């Protein structure tokens, strides 16, 4: 019944936003809100008379759902790490820890969404297009790959940069070359390196000089490894569970794994890319183990899977269908090189403690090339089929 009343209300105001109406200029915005509330009554006119129930909104909803375990875990971990650093004994699963984490993380999410969606709406309005749902996921990814102490204005700036220069200049969702969420992070990484690297930024409060108890470093496993303190690295199981310092949503491989299961089970995320990234990572890790020139290279190859943003990148970033390889064969190559480059940059290049972000952006550039070769081989196969005329 309520739905009917809501529908009547919308139908009453709708003419205002249509051609000739007073608010016709806000057509895209109205349309976005209307289609948010109701799947439109449009029917299939050409071609297939029936259509699959899936649309971009549903797809994005599933991805956000898959991000939830990492998000909730991230909030818990932010609280847990904070209280650990100040020497307070608070259990991991506690309302106190979660409450603290929630208050830290939620503003970042709000800033990311408000900035990004605001820009998307403006662009859609100017171009007279429908508002695309792509940012619904980017808006959640951005907070999850930020260090918790990142200033909110930086989140806003980075998001704006990513949406405008990462997406809209190319023509919007579906046309972009780079993963917008990663672009926001890489922007901050190079523009404000002091805020994006180091030992202090990963735990809430540390940058503001809040008391750190003796013997507590605040460094991430990657930081420790890069500094050569292999002995100080957390245990494998801790890194797998994620009770370690790091970006908000990337520490728990377990939570990410749950997300991966959701993506693969629903058929939304490409398991081929996930698997090939892991294979690439294991391959490079194995080579470095054999090489063994320094103590970092001796870190067991499978450790890399649970360190840093590797798992998060493999499951949520590399699988972006727009910026990744689009052919099924290409996906294997694309993913493998992401894994390989991630570990190579991570271990061998001292300037960048984490290589996943750069590896994925690099392969974003190469994805069209990989597809080109895959498609070209298909074309050649077809040409060879033509019988030779004598």
């Amino acid at each position, binding site marked *: 019944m309520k*739905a009917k009343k*809501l*529908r009547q209300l919308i139908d009453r105001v709708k003419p205002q936003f249509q051609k000739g109406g007073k608010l016709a200029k806000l057509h895209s915005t109205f349309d976005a809100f209307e*289609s948010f*509330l*109701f*799947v*439109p*009554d*449009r*029917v*299939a*006119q*050409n*071609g*297939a*008379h*029936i*259509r*699959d*129930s*899936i*649309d*971009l*909104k*549903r*797809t994005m*909803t*599933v991805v956000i759902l898959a991000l939830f375990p990492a998000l909730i875990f991230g909030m818990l971990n932010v609280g847990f790490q904070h209280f650990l650093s100040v020497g307070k004994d608070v259990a991991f699963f506690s309302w106190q820890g979660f409450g603290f984490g929630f208050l830290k993380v939620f503003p970042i999410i709000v800033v990311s969404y408000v900035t990004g969606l605001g820009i998307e709406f403006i662009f859609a309005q100017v171009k007279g297009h*429908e508002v*695309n*749902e*792509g940012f619904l996921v980017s808006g959640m990814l951005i907070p999850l790959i930020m260090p918790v102490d990142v200033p909110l204005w930086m989140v806003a700036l980075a998001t704006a940069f990513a949406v405008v220069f990462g997406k809209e200049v190319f*023509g*919007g*969702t*579906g*046309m972009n070359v780079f993963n917008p969420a990663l672009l926001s992070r890489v922007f901050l990484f190079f523009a404000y390196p002091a805020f994006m690297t180091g030992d202090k930024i990963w735990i809430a409060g540390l940058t503001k000089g809040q008391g750190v108890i003796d013997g507590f470093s605040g460094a991430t496993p990657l930081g420790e490894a890069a500094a050569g303190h292999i002995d100080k690295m957390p245990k494998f199981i801790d890194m797998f569970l994620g009770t370690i310092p790091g970006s908000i949503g990337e520490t728990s491989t377990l939570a990410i794994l749950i997300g991966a299961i959701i993506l693969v*089970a*629903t*058929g*939304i995320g*490409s398991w081929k890319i996930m698997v090939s990234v892991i294979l690439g990572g294991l391959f490079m890790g194995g080579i470095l183990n054999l090489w063994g020139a320094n103590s970092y290279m001796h870190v067991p190859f499978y450790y890399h899977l649970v360190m840093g943003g590797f798992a998060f990148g493999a499951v949520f970033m590399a699988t972006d*269908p*727009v910026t*990744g390889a*689009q*052919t*099924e064969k290409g*996906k294997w190559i694309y993913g493998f090189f992401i894994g390989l480059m991630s570990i190579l940059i991570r271990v061998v290049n001292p300037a960048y403690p984490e290589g996943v972000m750069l590896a994925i952006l690099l392969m974003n550039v190469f994805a069209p090339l990989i597809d080109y070769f895959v*498609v070209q081989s*298909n*074309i050649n*196969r*077809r*040409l060879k*089929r*033509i*019988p030779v005329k004598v």
Partner: protein
Amino acid sequence: MPDTFKKYAIDMSKVIKIKRGLDIRLKGAAGKTISQAGRTDLFAVKPTDFKGIDPRILVKQGQEVLAGTPLFCDKTHPEIVFVSPVSGTVEEILRGERRKLLDIMVRSGLQPGFEPLQKGDPSTMDMEAIRQQIFKSGLWPSIIQRPYGVVADPNHTPRDIFISAFDSAPLGADYEFILKDEAKTFSTGIKALRKLTSGKVHIGLDSRKEPSKVFANLEGIEYHFFSGPHPAGNTGIQIHHVAPVNKEEVVWTVTPQLVALIGRTFLIGQLDSTWTFALAGSYIKEPRYIKGIRGMAIAPVLAGQLQEQELPPRVISGNVLTGTNIGENGYLGYYDSVVTVIPEGKYFDLFGWAMPGINKFSMSRSFLSSFLPKKSWDIDTNLKGGHRAFVMTGQYEKVFPMDIYPVHLLKAVITNDVDKMEQLGIYEVIEEDMALCEFVCTSKTDVQEILRTGLDLIRKEMSQ
């Protein structure tokens, strides 16, 4: 493995397994009974049913015609005529925008009369005599050519002729059931078709079923067995896996019931437009087969058969993936062996995209329904989303069992890149082969419409 397979010396290793595709099990499959269609006086031949035809009208309103009298012909090939299925008078010539010919309606008279045709055994006739018979009977348009999916160009001799003996589309008709008493007419039709090609006549059979006597034991035929989900029954898919269409090659396809119709003209020496079709869909009270006449008005068939529901019905001549919306007062399409009636999905769905979706069908498993056991689905015509740019990948490939990159091909069409279209295999596909891509598309892309634009463009380029 059915025993009859052994008769053909077909071993299972020769069965072509189609792995990618999708069977959409819709409610309202036609039961295996045949009813006579109610009496109807109105019939229509619709120029819009035919691709690659530029119609020139040959009759006037009020003119008396016999069954088999040409109503219009193609401007480029006037020998391709489109004839009246019954005798009577031309009721109306309906034109649309820019005087485009839409329907030519004939009201049947009391006296049945036929244009005479030749009677004889096609295997003793020469190719030209057979061609003339098919032209005169108005059945030449039954023959569809690849590339382009248009009415066959009479100037070509096809490399091969392909016939798919089963319809794998949702609620598709069972040809073996329709033709169960037509073994003679079908085999005569095959004899005629064999004379038209320098190559072979291929028949694609469903490997899961035992071939009926209609399709079995035909002479000089290449049999192929296919298993797997729709579109395994599409001739395009079958051709691709048997002998793909290369550049400058031409292949013809005919559907089984039309083969029988061609055969019948040789047996009785006149045009018999009797036609059996499945009346199916969730809105039909008693889904079953109907024996009627080609081009008949559908209203008398639907009378008393439609479910009384809140949503209005959509009447489709053809199947739900490729058919034509003809409305409750439309006419049976030239090629269609099924009429499907489903709910018109003109409604708003509150938070439809966010709900668990117990009753929502999706190839993805993003709705709860995918995890519930369900036998058949009632799907309406709602678009279930808005048009977007291409975002998802790998989706089309799951339902498109050809060694072709579907999205790349469509993008070549969108950018009018004729060379790329050719390189990416446009000669091998027509709309029906990619209809499932359109069904599953997250971005609600009009795949079939885009492909048709490309096919028309490349056909124009090639004819210059």
